[in-house]
C-alpha cells in the first residue's frame, strides 16, 4: 500500500510543508510504479505530470533499507526523454529544486545537442542519477564505447510528451533505444527498467501505450488525471464582413484588433503557422502599435539559439508583453506570465489548437484563454468547428511509424559504432518493438547486407567497408572516419540546406534556407528575427548582412509550413456547413458570416454534410470544376489527380490542378464533360490503388521522400548548417541515389520504403478510400455559378500563391474580390 510506504510519507510531509497536496492521479501513478507497472500518464499541462513520474523512483529509493553499492559507472537511475532541448532546461530546474528541498544528493544531468564536450566527458566518467535527454542524444549514448554498463542500475525510462514523438521516426528512435537497454539488462539478469510515458490527450491513447510498452505480458496501465482544463475560446471578429477577405493567409489587416488584447493581458503568445508569417506579423504589429517596440519579440526555429534562449528567459521573467511564434513554442515549456494565446489562421487540427491554448493559464485550475484570429472569412467556420470539437474532446490520433527501415539501418550502425552488436540478439530485440514487430527475416537480412557488404548484386559492391564482424563475433565499425561521420548524423530530422546569417560586424542572427538566399542579389533586403537586413555577400556557407534602412522587406519562406486539415476537423467542419444556413444558432462566428453563406446559397449551393458540392464555372480563363470534399489538401491533391485522370479516360482532356483544405479545382481549356452519372464514376473507390498509380507521378513523389530516407540511412551526408561538408569527394544527392538504385538495385528496401511512405503518409490512401466511400453515399449536387463563389474563390487564390510574393498576392486578391462582387451586382 502506498500510504504505508516510508518514501511516500517523506514526500507527503515535504509537500505539506510547502502547503501542497498531491493530485489523486499522481498518487495512482506512484502506487502503480511501486507495484512494478509500466504505463502512460495522461494529464493536461499544468497539473504536475512531471512530478507524477519524477517522484516515483525517489519514493522507491527512500523505501530501500540498504542502498545498492554504487560505482561511478552505474549511478544512472532515471532517464527522462524530452522531444525539445528547451524543455530539458525547464524540467531540470524543477527537479533540482525538489531534490534540494528533499535533501537528496541525486544529481541531474542534461544531455542534448547543446551539451558541452567537457560536460559530456564528465558524464562519461560518472553519470548523474537522473539524465534528461533527447532521443537523438540517447542514440549518441549508445554509440559510445562502453555504453552498456552505464545502464546497469537504471530503474526507469520516461518518455515525456510522448504524443509528440509517437507519430514520427523520433518515436522509433525511442522504441529502439528502450529495446536495447532492456535487452542488455535481460542478458545480465538484471531487472528491466520500467517504461513510462507522459502524453496529452490524443485519439489513440491505448495504442500510444502499446507502442511504448509493446510486450503484452508486462504489467502496463494508463493513469488518467480526469482533470478538466478549462479553456475559453474567443474568435476575433472584424467590424464588418467586408474587412475580412474571402481568401488569403496573412490576416494582417486585422492587426489593430490585437492591440487591446495584448494590452489587457499580462503576456500574450501569438501563434502563426509559418515562420514567414511570424516575421510579417512582427513587422506589422510594430507599425500598428510602435509602443510595443522592445516589448515584442519573434521566436521560431530559424532564429539563433542564443537569441531564442534570451526570449524564453524574458518570457519567464515577464519582461515581454507579447511574442510572435510558431510551433517552436508549442511544447510544454511553462511560462508563468503567459495568460493569453492568439492563434492566427487555421490551426488545422484540434489537438494542436488545444495544445497551443494550454500555453496560457499554466497553473492548475487556471483557465486557458485563446483567441482565434481568422485570416479569411471561411476560417470563421473552422473556428466554430474547433470549438465544438474541443468541447467534445474530438481529438486526432497520432499514427505510430512502422517499418521505417532507414531508422533501423541507422540504429544498427549506431550500435556497431558503440560496443558492437550480436545480430541474433539484436534481431530479437528489434522484433520486440512495435515499429518492427512485422519485420520479415529477409528484410532484416537485407539491411544486414546493406551495412556489411553493400548489397546483393554479385561483385557490384567490391571494396565496400562499413560494418564488419570482429574477432569476438560482434558487428562493429572499425574505421574511425566512418564512426565519426555516423555520430555527426544520428537523428531523423532532416532539414533543408540552411545557411547561417551573420552581421559583417559580427553577431549571429539565425538561419535561412539556401534556396531563399540564392534568389537574392547583394543589396536586397529581407527580414529575420524581426530585423530588416541587407544582403552583403554569401561566403563559406555564411550569409553576411548589414542593417538595412528600408522600412519593408520580403520575408524568407521556409519550407514545410503547410499542414493539411485533420480528418477530425474536416468532419466537424462539414457538419457546421450544415448549420450555416440556419439563422439562429449558438455560434457567433456562423452568425457573423451568415451573409456570405446566403451569397453562396444564392449563387450556388451550401453543401450539407451528406452532400458533395461540385461547381462548374466557365470564364475567360477556361472551364473550371470545383469540388469540396473537406478532406485536407493532401487528400485533395491526390483526389484531384485521380478525378482528372478518370475524366481524361472518357475523352482526351488535360487539366491544371489547384487545391486547398476544403476542396480542389480542375481547370481546362476545353469544356469538361460532367453530369451526375459521371460524378459518381469518377469519385468511385473502385480500382483505387491502380488508378492512383496511373494518375499521379508516384515516382517523383517517392524521389522527394527518398531525400529524408537517404539522409537517415547514411547514404547522404547533409553536413551541418553553416559548416562545410567534411569530404567533398563524398558529396552526392539523394536524387542520384534514387536513380542508381532504381536502375541497378530494384530490390532496395529503402526504395520500397519511399514508395510506402508516399502511399501511406503523403497520399493517405486509407483516408482517401474512406472519403470516396462517404461520397458514394452522399448526394452529389452540381451547380453552374456565373462567377467565383465564396467557396471557390480561396482555391483560386491558393493556386496563384505559388507564383507570387505575398504582397502582390494581397493586391490581386483585393482586385479579384471586387470583380466577383461587381459581376454579381451586374447580374
Amino acid at each position, binding site marked *: 500500500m502506498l500510504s504505508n510506504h516510508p518514501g511516500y510519507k517523506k514526500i507527503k510531509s515535504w509537500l505539506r510543508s510547502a502547503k501542497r497536496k498531491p493530485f489523486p492521479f499522481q498518487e495512482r501513478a506512484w502506487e502503480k510504479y511501486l507495484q512494478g507497472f509500466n504505463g502512460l500518464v495522461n494529464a493536461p499541462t499544468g497539473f504536475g505530470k512531471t512530478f507524477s513520474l519524477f517522484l516515483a523512483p525517489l519514493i522507491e529509493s527512500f523505501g530501500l533499507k540498504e542502498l545498492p553499492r554504487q560505482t561511478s559507472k552505474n549511478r544512472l537511475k532515471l532517464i527522462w526523454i524530452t522531444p525539445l532541448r528547451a524543455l530539458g532546461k525547464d524540467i531540470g530546474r524543477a527537479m533540482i529544486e525538489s531534490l534540494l528541498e528533499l535533501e537528496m544528493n541525486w544529481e541531474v544531468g542534461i544531455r542534448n545537442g547543446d551539451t558541452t564536450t567537457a560536460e559530456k566527458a564528465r558524464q562519461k566518467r560518472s553519470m548523474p542519477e537522473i539524465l534528461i535527454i533527447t532521443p537523438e542524444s540517447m542514440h549518441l549514448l549508445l554509440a559510445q564505447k562502453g555504453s552498456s554498463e552505464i545502464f546497469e542500475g537504471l530503474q526507469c525510462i520516461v518518455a515525456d510528451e510522448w504524443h509528440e514523438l509517437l507519430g514520427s521516426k523520433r518515436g522509433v528512435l525511442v522504441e529502439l533505444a528502450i529495446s536495447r537497454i532492456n535487452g542488455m539488462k535481460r542478458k545480465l539478469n538484471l531487472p528491466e527498467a520500467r517504461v513510462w510515458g507522459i502524453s496529452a490527450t490524443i485519439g489513440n491513447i491505448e495504442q500510444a501505450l502499446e507502442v511504448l510498452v509493446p510486450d503484452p505480458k508486462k504489467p502496463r496501465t494508463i493513469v488518467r488525471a480526469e482533470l478538466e482544463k478549462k479553456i475559453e475560446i474567443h474568435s476575433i471578429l472584424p467590424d464588418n464582413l467586408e474587412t475580412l477577405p474571402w481568401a488569403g493567409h496573412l490576416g494582417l489587416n486585422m492587426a489593430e484588433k490585437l492591440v487591446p488584447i495584448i494590452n489587457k493581458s499580462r503576456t500574450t503568445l501569438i501563434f502563426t503557422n509559418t515562420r514567414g508569417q511570424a516575421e510579417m506579423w512582427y513587422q506589422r504589429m510594430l507599425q500598428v502599435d510602435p509602443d510595443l517596440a522592445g516589448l515584442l519579440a519573434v521566436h521560431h526555429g530559424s532564429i539563433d539559439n542564443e537569441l531564442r534562449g534570451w526570449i524564453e528567459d524574458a518570457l519567464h521573467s515577464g519582461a515581454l508583453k507579447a511574442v510572435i511564434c510558431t510551433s517552436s513554442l508549442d511544447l510544454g515549456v511553462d511560462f508563468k506570465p503567459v495568460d493569453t494565446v492568439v492563434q492566427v489562421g487555421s490551426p488545422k487540427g484540434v489537438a494542436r489548437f488545444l495544445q497551443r491554448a494550454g500555453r496560457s493559464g499554466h497553473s492548475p485550475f487556471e483557465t486557458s484563454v485563446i483567441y482565434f484570429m481568422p485570416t479569411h472569412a471561411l476560417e470563421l467556420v473552422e473556428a466554430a468547428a474547433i470549438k465544438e470539437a474541443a468541447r467534445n474532446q474530438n481529438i486526432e490520433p497520432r499514427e505510430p511509424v512502422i517499418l521505417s527501415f532507414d531508422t533501423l539501418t541507422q540504429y544498427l550502425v549506431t550500435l556497431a559504432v558503440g560496443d558492437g552488436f550480436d545480430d541474433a540478439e539484436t534481431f530479437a530485440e528489434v522484433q520486440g518493438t512495435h515499429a518492427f514487430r512485422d519485420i520479415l527475416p529477409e528484410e532484416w537480412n537485407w539491411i544486414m547486407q546493406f551495412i556489411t557488404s553493400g*548489397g546483393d*548484386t554479385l561483385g557490384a559492391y567490391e571494396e565496400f567497408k562499413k560494418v564488419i564482424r570482429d574477432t569476438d563475433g560482434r558487428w562493429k565499425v572499425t574505421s574511425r572516419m566512418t564512426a565519426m561521420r555516423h555520430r555527426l548524423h544520428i537523428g531523423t530530422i532532416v532539414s533543408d540546406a540552411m545557411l547561417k546569417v551573420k552581421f559583417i560586424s559580427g553577431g549571429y542572427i539565425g538561419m535561412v534556407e539556401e534556396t531563399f538566399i540564392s534568389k537574392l542579389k547583394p543589396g536586397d533586403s529581407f527580414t529575420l528575427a524581426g530585423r530588416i537586413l541587407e544582403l552583403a555577400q554569401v561566403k563559406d556557407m555564411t550569409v553576411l548582412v548589414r542593417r538595412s534602412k528600408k522600412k519593408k522587406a520580403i520575408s524568407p519562406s521556409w519550407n514545410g509550413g503547410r499542414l493539411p486539415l485533420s480528418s477530425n476537423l474536416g468532419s466537424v467542419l462539414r457538419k457546421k456547413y450544415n448549420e450555416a444556413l440556419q439563422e439562429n444558432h449558438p455560434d457567433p462566428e456562423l452568425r457573423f458570416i451568415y451573409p456570405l453563406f446566403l451569397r453562396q446559397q444564392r449563387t450556388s449551393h451550401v453543401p450539407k454534410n451528406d452532400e458533395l458540392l461540385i461547381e462548374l464555372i466557365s470564364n475567360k480563363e477556361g472551364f473550371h470544376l470545383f469540388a469540396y470534399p473537406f478532406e485536407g489538401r493532401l487528400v485533395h491533391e491526390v483526389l484531384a489527380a485521380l478525378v482528372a485522370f478518370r475524366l481524361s479516360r472518357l475523352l482526351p482532356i488535360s487539366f491544371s490542378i489547384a487545391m486547398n483544405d476544403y476542396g480542389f479545382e480542375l481547370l481546362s481549356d476545353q469544356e469538361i464533360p460532367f453530369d451526375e452519372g459521371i460524378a459518381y464514376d469518377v469519385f468511385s473507390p473502385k480500382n483505387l490503388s491502380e488508378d492512383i498509380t496511373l494518375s499521379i507521378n508516384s515516382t517523383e513523389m517517392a524521389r522527394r521522400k527518398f531525400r529524408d530516407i537517404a539522409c537517415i540511412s547514411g547514404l547522404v551526408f547533409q553536413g551541418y548548417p553553416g559548416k562545410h561538408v567534411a569530404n567533398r569527394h563524398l558529396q552526392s544527392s539523394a536524387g542520384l541515389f534514387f*536513380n542508381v538504385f532504381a536502375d541497378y538495385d530494384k530490390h532496395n528496401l529503402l526504395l520500397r520504403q519511399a514508395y510506402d511512405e508516399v502511399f501511406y503518409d503523403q497520399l493517405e490512401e486509407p483516408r482517401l478510400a474512406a472519403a470516396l466511400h462517404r461520397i458514394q453515399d452522399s448526394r452529389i449536387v452540381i451547380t453552374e455559378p456565373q462567377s467565383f463563389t465564396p467557396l471557390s474563390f480561396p482555391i483560386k487564390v491558393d493556386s496563384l500563391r505559388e507564383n507570387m510574393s505575398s504582397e502582390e498576392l494581397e493586391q490581386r486578391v483585393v482586385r479579384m474580390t471586387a470583380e466577383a462582387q461587381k459581376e454579381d451586382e451586374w447580374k
Partner: protein
Amino acid sequence: MEINCKGERIILDEERAIYLPDHGFLVLSDLHLGKSAHFRRAGVPVPATIGINDLSRLSFLLERYQPDCLLVTGDMFHHSLNSDIAHFADWRKQHSALRLILVKGNHDLLSDADYAALGIELHSPSFCLGPFCFIHDAPKCTEEELYPISGHIHPGITLQGKARQKLRFPCYYFGKDFAVLPAFSLFTGLSTIRQSAGDRSYAITPGKVVAV
C-alpha cells in the same frame, strides 16, 4: 544535333559527349571513374555497375563516331586508384589503339606513372585545338584568342512546363565567353545554370538533344 561554333561543326550527342568531325575528336568531361568505389570504401553502398555502364556508353560512342582521339576535359578519375579503375584498365586494353588525352581536373589525383600505365596523354592546364581551348574550369583559361570548352560544373537546366511542371536535365552550355560540357558519368549531380542574353543551351532530354 549539329551546331556551328566559331566556324567549326560540332555534333552534340545525347550520350553527353561532343564530336568534332573535322578533327576526328570525341570530347567529353567529368567521367569520374572510381567514384562508386570511393563511396563504397567510405561505407556508402553504391553498386559498381554504374561505372561499368558508363564505360559501355563510351564504347558505344567510339563505335558510332570511330574517332581518332578521345579527349577528356578533366575529372576523368575520382580521387584514387580502386577496383573501378581496374574495370577501366580492362576497357583500355580493348581500345588500345585509341589516342586518349586528359586535360587534368581537380579530381585527377593519380600519379603520372599511373596515367602512363593506362596509356593516357596528359595535358595541364589546357589542350588547344583549332579555335578552341579545352580546359577543365573555364574561368582559369589564359588563352585570350581562343574559345574555352570546359566541364567541371556538371551543368543542368530547368525547363518549365504548363501547370507548374518543372523538369531538370543535363545540358550543353555555349555562352558568349566559354562553353561547358555536361558530366559524362551518370553518377553525377547537376548544378543549374542561368542563361543570359546571347547564350545558347541544349538540354539533353531522354533520347534527344533540344535547343532551349
